[in-house]
């Protein structure tokens, strides 16, 4: 046996290289794809994630700065305000006692029917007289995309119906009255 230990170490390295040469390319391709995916996701996240929506009160306060730019607005739908005809749904949303009139084009998601459901709408402020439960307004929100923001509250459907009343304490400090469902 003329193999010195030193020789054997070289031999091992050689063999390892033979085994792994083919795998190395595949792994490199996967690694590059993963890095690209990671970069894409991070970019998307930074752009959208930090300010996913503005609440109604903030959207009203920032009306001047927002101008006609597109953004997302969040509020609870006032059940008695919902009217729908020919693909257009009008309703009012409320958050922290600020109310906005909404004109939505397109089919609302199934859960929109649920009273006082929080929704996130995509669209912009449009100048135009509107009337809300809180009084007259110079703008309304024109939306073409609606997402229902369901909560983490779960209750058995066997135990009762959805309450038509606003969530407990939600409108307590507001200076306006919300009419009961007109239908």
């Amino acid at each position, binding site marked *: 046996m003329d193999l010195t230990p030193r020789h054997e170490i070289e031999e091992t390295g050689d063999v390892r290289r033979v085994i792994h040469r083919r795998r190395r390319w595949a792994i490199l391709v996967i690694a590059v794809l993963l890095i690209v995916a990671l970069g894409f996701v991070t970019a998307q*996240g930074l752009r959208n994630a930090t300010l996913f929506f503005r609440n109604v009160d903030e959207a009203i306060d920032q009306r001047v700065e927002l101008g006609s730019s597109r953004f997302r607005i969040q509020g609870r739908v006032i059940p008695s305000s919902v009217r729908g005809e020919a693909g257009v749904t009008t309703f009012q949303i409320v958050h922290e006692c600020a109310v906005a009139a909404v004109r939505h084009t397109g089919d609302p998601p199934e859960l929109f029917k649920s009273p006082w459901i929080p929704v996130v709408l995509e669209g912009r402020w449009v100048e135009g007289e509107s009337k809300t439960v809180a009084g007259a307004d110079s703008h309304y929100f024109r939306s073409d995309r609606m997402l229902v923001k369901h909560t*983490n509250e779960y209750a*058995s*459907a066997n135990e009762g119906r959805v309450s038509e009343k606003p969530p407990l304490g939600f409108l307590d400090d507001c200076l306006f009255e919300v009419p009961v469902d007109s239908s």
Partner: protein
Amino acid sequence: MAERTDDSKMTATPLTRVLGILGIAAVVFMVVLGLFISPPDVVQGEAVRMLYLHVPSIWIAYGSFVLTSVSSLLFLVRSRRREDGGRHYDRVAGSAAEVGVVFTGLTLITGMLWGKVTWGTYWQWDARLTTTVLLFVTYLGYLALRRLPADPIVRGRRAAVMALISFVNVPIVHYSVDWWRTLHQKASLSVGRRPEITGEMYWTLLYSALTVTIVGAWLIIHRYRVIRLEELRDEENLKMLISSRRHERSADSAADGEVS
């Protein structure tokens, strides 16, 4: 199966067999409880049944990633002191991470389906969804890193460092719904807050989490053993290659001798 041989039990032990049977029984009852006994939700209707898959899946994924991190840390700290160079810890880390990735994937799939019927969209780049997909991709990267050929100890060390870095994202995913505004709802259950979920649904959720834990544990144990087998096979292959090379070399030198 009449032709069952010993090798059919290659990665099974009495403990995992009991765990496996327990897991199957638990899954059967989970289906009955989750799909039939538990009530529909007052707002969401039948769609609420996605809760029992979606939430336990991410809990098990979190748990798996905790296990990966702890094992990785132990590998880094103790590898020099153990006879096997700490490869036991490396295997635990690797198998738990893989199972974690599977359950993170399931969380994403079930979440997208659930989102379609409740939110009205499969996907939105809100903070929770974005960080979760990032979690999925980083641990996929971790698994890819584990496959990069290198000396087992060097590879284990690299992987352990990456595992610890990847884990930073786990609390970010969990608290993203509190830290940022998201379309995603807040945590279903959290410490120090009264669960806003009715009793039957609450118990179904906890039971489902227990079931998924059993399944996850079974998977991690088996995956661990498969990693062990892979290592043994690689060592075998290496030995065989070396000895065949030796034969070639000695044959070559013999041939050389004849010619000269």
